[in-house]
């Protein structure tokens, strides 16, 4: 299927992302994923779906087939998110995609389907924020089995807080604060409650459900191990590449929050999104 066919746009590289930015730039979350691609940061490939019909369904199946997967990670966006936006980041079986995607499209949202990555299979997830000069960085980190949304949505207290500085000799980690064990244990209980909601079961049954899905990282790793310096430094090094991309696209390079994860035990690094929180939500819209 041609990349510019209406209703369906595969994004696999910087070039296809740049092409899509012109069409979909009004969707901030989608735009940020495209900008990550355009800046050639490690990012999951995916397809943008703006309507649903047989041709689009066939194209999505071809995309999944090329990945040898029968599931895709579903995210969605609207041009003006409120604080009540539906949560994203679900793995959806191909057979259920239409039922999941159509209602979102009917709400005026846009859907992007990414190569499958379980939200319970992240070794570490991070939120990063540079200062105005992109010299000093704050990072919040959660450990295995948690995901970036836990940090972005304030669902749990970070397992580790890091301060780093970009100096003449590269990135230096200046300070680390690791959460106490009781904070970590409380966050695991919250994560299991969240897993239960996502899996449609009771919190008591969540461990069994996760084991049946083979997504056991949250269960297997019961203490927090601080993230290695190298992983922090590599992530910040990559993120530095974003600034020029933002500036060249006349996007605000101040007050951004960036999220990333190390996927699986192999720790494949992927960036999820860049967010300008103040413009993302309608302040005072309660």
């Amino acid at each position, binding site marked *: 299927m041609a990349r510019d066919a209406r209703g369906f746009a595969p994004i696999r590289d910087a070039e296809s992302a740049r092409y899509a930015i012109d069409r979909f730039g009004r969707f901030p979350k989608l735009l940020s994923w495209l900008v990550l691609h355009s800046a050639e940061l490690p990012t999951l490939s995916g397809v943008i779906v703006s309507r649903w019909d047989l041709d689009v369904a066939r194209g999505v199946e071809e995309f999944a087939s090329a990945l040898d997967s029968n599931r895709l990670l579903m995210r969605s966006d609207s041009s003006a998110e409120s604080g009540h936006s539906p949560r994203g980041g679900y793995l959806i079986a191909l057979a259920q995609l239409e039922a999941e995607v159509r209602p979102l499209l009917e709400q005026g949202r846009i859907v992007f389907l990414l190569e499958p990555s379980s939200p319970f299979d992240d070794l570490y997830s991070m939120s990063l924020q540079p200062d105005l000069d992109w010299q000093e960085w704050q990072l919040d980190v959660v450990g295995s089995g948690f995901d970036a949304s836990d940090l972005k949505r304030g669902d749990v*207290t970070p397992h580790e807080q890091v301060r780093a500085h970009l100096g003449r000799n590269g990135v230096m980690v200046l300070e680390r604060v690791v959460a106490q064990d009781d904070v970590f244990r409380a966050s695991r209980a919250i994560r299991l409650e969240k897993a239960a909601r996502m899996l449609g079961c009771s919190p008591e049954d969540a461990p069994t459900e996760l084991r049946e899905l083979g997504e056991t990282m949250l269960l297997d790793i019961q203490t927090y191990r601080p993230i290695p310096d190298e992983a922090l430094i590599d992530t910040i090094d990559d993120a530095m590449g974003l600034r020029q991309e933002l500036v060249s696209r006349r996007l605000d390079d101040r007050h951004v929050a960036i999220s990333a994860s190390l996927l699986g035990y192999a720790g494949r690094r992927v960036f999820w999104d860049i967010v300008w929180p103040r413009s993302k939500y309608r302040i005072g819209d309660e």
Partner: protein
Amino acid sequence: MSELVTVSGIAASPGRRRAHARVLPNASEFAQVRPGEILVTRFASPEVVLVLDRIAGLVTDQGGRLAHAVVVARELGVPAVVGTQTATEEFVTGSVVVLDGSLGTVRVVSEQPN
């Protein structure tokens, strides 16, 4: 004595405020918050952003400095202490509390509801 209750958390947005606490564990209750109150809630969820224009400060049980709601709180100059673990259990609505978003502390100074 309950007047001595102090909780600590992550110093997430600088500034010091003395105001009445409004304890609303769940985001679905946020319509109850009155202008000038310090919102005490469980999570630093995106719904917090919707009331940031009317609260004097933010205290949460969970969340960190880079939760989106907390990033916005900093930009708007709303002091915040997050990740206290127990604030919604320790404080009651109507208490006067002093929030120090630079030190990461919240202290009850009066439990007389207004």
